[in-house]
């Protein structure tokens, strides 16, 4: 049933929010501490449990995945209702923080790559696999775009 998926998601979200609030109180801040993250962990755990028990039905999956696929449209709606007029006054902050973060991360990709030694490139892997298997080159699934 689709509703069971939606309900599972709702229970995980509520539990996460509740624990996040509790954590906030325990730590003495007026904030929800990591509620969304905690809820995600519940959902991942629930999925594992359901898969093991073979209880993961199509309807249940549909119920959760529908809301997952709704995530970008909801973020668009969220963006459309912010106080951008006030934010525009702080414009340069966006460019400096955004570009800076990317630059630093690019540098770290290069650094980690150098530190951890050489590995086979994609071309070499494919060449080797083509030789040894003499079979069609494996098809790579394209990544999920979210």
């Amino acid at each position, binding site marked *: 049933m689709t509703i069971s998926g939606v309900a599972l998601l709702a229970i995980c979200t509520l539990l996460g929010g509740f624990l996040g609030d509790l954590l906030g109180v325990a730590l003495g801040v007026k904030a929800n501490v990591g509620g969304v993250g905690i809820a995600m962990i519940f959902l991942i755990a629930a999925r594992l449990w359901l898969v093991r028990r073979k209880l993961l039905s199509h309807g249940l999956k549909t119920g959760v995945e529908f809301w997952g696929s709704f995530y970008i449209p909801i973020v668009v709606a969220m963006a459309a209702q912010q106080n951008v007029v006030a934010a525009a006054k702080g414009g340069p902050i966006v460019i400096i923080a955004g570009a800076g973060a990317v630059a630093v991360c690019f540098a770290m990709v290069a650094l980690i790559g150098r530190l951890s030694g050489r590995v086979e490139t994609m071309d070499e892997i494919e060449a080797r696999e083509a030789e040894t298997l003499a079979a069609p080159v494996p098809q790579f699934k394209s990544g*999920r775009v*979210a």
Partner: protein
Amino acid sequence: MTMLSHVLVANSLITAFAAVGILMWLSGAISKYFTFGRIHGSAIAIMLGLALAFLGGLFTGGEKGVADLPALAGIGLMGGAMLRDFAIVATAFEVDVVHARKAGLIGAVALGLGTVVPFILGVLVAAAFGYTDAESLTTIGAGAVTYIVGPVTGAAIGASSPVIALSIATGVFKAVIVMIGTPFVAKMIGLDNPRSAMVFGGLMGTVSGVSGGLAATDRRLVPYGALTATFHTGLGCLVAPSILYFAVRAITGG
């Protein structure tokens, strides 16, 4: 005309679905025909959303972007904290623990660094621009992680709407640079094997940025990058409003 607006107001959430749907479709078309797929439709849609919020703010003089227009009040519900958290939690359902193990230690290291390093940078930039309260600093820092982590964190710890808008814009800008810039620096940073693609995905984070950037570099690397990038938002939503917020609070003494 009044009848039409009555229908729109009476069905505000449905109106919001239609409006956002049209915006997404338009963005997809812009992505396809004007940027040749270079910039992902979702990034364009979010930028358009911010732009519309700007216009809405100018037009109504209000603080809630287009949601201040009576016909589009449903946008406020659709993009509000309730449905947003619900949808973000749902994305965790697609996380496969078996795949997670494949990414291994190096993926985990990249993920950790990819969260903490942009955060620190964002906080420093925000501090340089005169923000002193822990909530604003944390939210802008979280925006430098991804455009999701920013608003989730901001809403959780109670940051103001302009600061949340800044954090979304920072995250979107980051995603766009990753999409456009990756092919140009790919060679320099050794982006030609699955492992560096996983490191890349973990460090950059934004799934749309990573998959767009990798697709333009080498299509075969996309699944490896997306593998680690999918964990990025969840990790960010977990640590930014908690550990990182407390670290900032401890420093600012808020």
